[in-house]
């Protein structure tokens, strides 16, 4: 199973590394494309977690939807002079300290906790999830499903209302 581990490590490094690039790249457009790589890596990680349906939805929603929105936002708002809006040094220092502290905290919590987990070391049974997700959506999760659709409708109308032309 060493080969699977290698593939997993490659995707994990892609995910985390491009997340770091999102933060540290000078140009906002580089940050956007790094974000694409990071989201794609997350989708690949979902495959390792037996969430194939969710991996496809992740790519469709994040890369095909949100990332394109962000790219359009970048293209519509960036002026050539303001190509690299970078923060003050003090902000970066304090932000980094806070972030590292937060990570240390979370990491300690992860390692100290005694997780009661299923044994997944040998012959995991991968089963299709789309059917289970569909059944769950229309039985146990029917109320959140409907609320989510109303939320989407509200967001749609709200976004269109916000960017309407001024003089109408």
């Amino acid at each position: 199973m060493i080969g699977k581990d290698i593939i997993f490590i490659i995707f994990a490094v892609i995910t985390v590394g491009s997340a770091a690039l999102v933060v540290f790249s000078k140009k906002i457009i580089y940050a956007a494309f790094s974000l694409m790589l990071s989201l794609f890596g997350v989708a690949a990680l979902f495959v390792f977690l037996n969430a194939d349906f969710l991996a496809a939805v992740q790519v469709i929603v994040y890369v095909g939807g949100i990332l394109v929105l962000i790219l359009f936002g970048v293209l519509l708002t960036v002026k050539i002079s303001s190509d690299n809006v970078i923060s003050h040094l003090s902000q970066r220092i304090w932000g980094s300290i806070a972030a590292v502290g937060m990570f240390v905290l979370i990491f300690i919590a992860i390692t100290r906790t005694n997780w009661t987990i299923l044994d997944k070391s040998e012959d995991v049974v991968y089963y299709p999830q789309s059917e289970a997700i569909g059944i769950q959506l229309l039985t146990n999760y029917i109320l959140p499903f409907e609320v989510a659709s109303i939320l989407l409708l509200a967001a749609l109308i709200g976004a269109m209302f916000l960017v309407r032309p001024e003089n109408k």
Partner: protein
Amino acid sequence: MIQAEYYNIFVKIIDQLAVLDFLPPVWKFILASVIAALVFFHVIAIFALVAIWVERKVAGHIQDRLGPMETGWHGVLQTLADAIKLLIKEDIIAGGIDRRLFVLAPVIVFMTALAVFVVFPVGENFIVSDLNIGILYIVAISTLVVPGIIMAGWSSNNKWSLFGAMRSAAQIVSYEVPVGLAIVCAVMAAGSLSMQTIVESQAGGFWNWFIFSKFPFGFIAFFIYFVASLAEINRTPFDLPEAESEIVAGYMTEYSGMRWSFFFLAEYGNMLAVGAIATTLFLGGWQTPISLLSFIPGPVWFTAKTMFLVFVHIWLRWTLPRLRVDQLMYMCWKVLTPFAFVSIFGIGLWMTF
């Protein structure tokens, strides 16, 4: 490993080769993937060679011309000559462009065209990977092309490129909606997302194909898929992103030689892919139309149907003029999308009763 319960023809073949027994299964899997990628790269390349020749000939004859005639018999070697010319052309990277993104963009665009070939059920036992989310995988991978196109347009540092990329992105994102809804129609009728299951549920004669069996909703869904997929791969009459009379060549303006030929290969690969998807979803994939003809193997049927759809693409291209942007969006949001909803509703009723 992940492929454990998925059928994969290349893994099967490699498993049967005794020479490779010393490899652990994962490396066999990786080897199979590399071979599959190479095979489909060549499929796309050869298809492009043939399709460009056919397109020129069809274009010529539709306009009462002859098309290429000089290189080889009736110009069959013309595309090969053009390809060689493109390969040995100077690779120009203009000054002031964003070099990293500029180099990366054709790779991403071509990769998306290549990656969808993994799940096409060419024959009964001929599929690279029968994912159980097959069609969703195709939709997911084909959305990746939008960032690639924006990357190409932005990095070229050229206003025509950027306009073309914005147009293309807006068009592809908009037409994702009717494409997705038309796909949902077929998925509802088959009750599965797996490509092989979708094909198997259309067995037994052409009247069981979804285009005919759920008449008229299947036909509407097929029609919507066909039109919207034309728009999604930027073919005429929806080739506004490359409208040469308005914006030179769209996002490809600054590209030349090898990198441009990757865009071109991706375009023809997409044509093949779209034809194959429509065949799989609505025209019964590798199923024979009538049982009398079942001695002809499945891959032949699959290829024949796909090539017919590709021919219709070419035929349409040389018939219709280019749409305006507002007509394009009108068609997407006010015609195709409502009709897709109607056909989803109709198929839902059909499946219920």
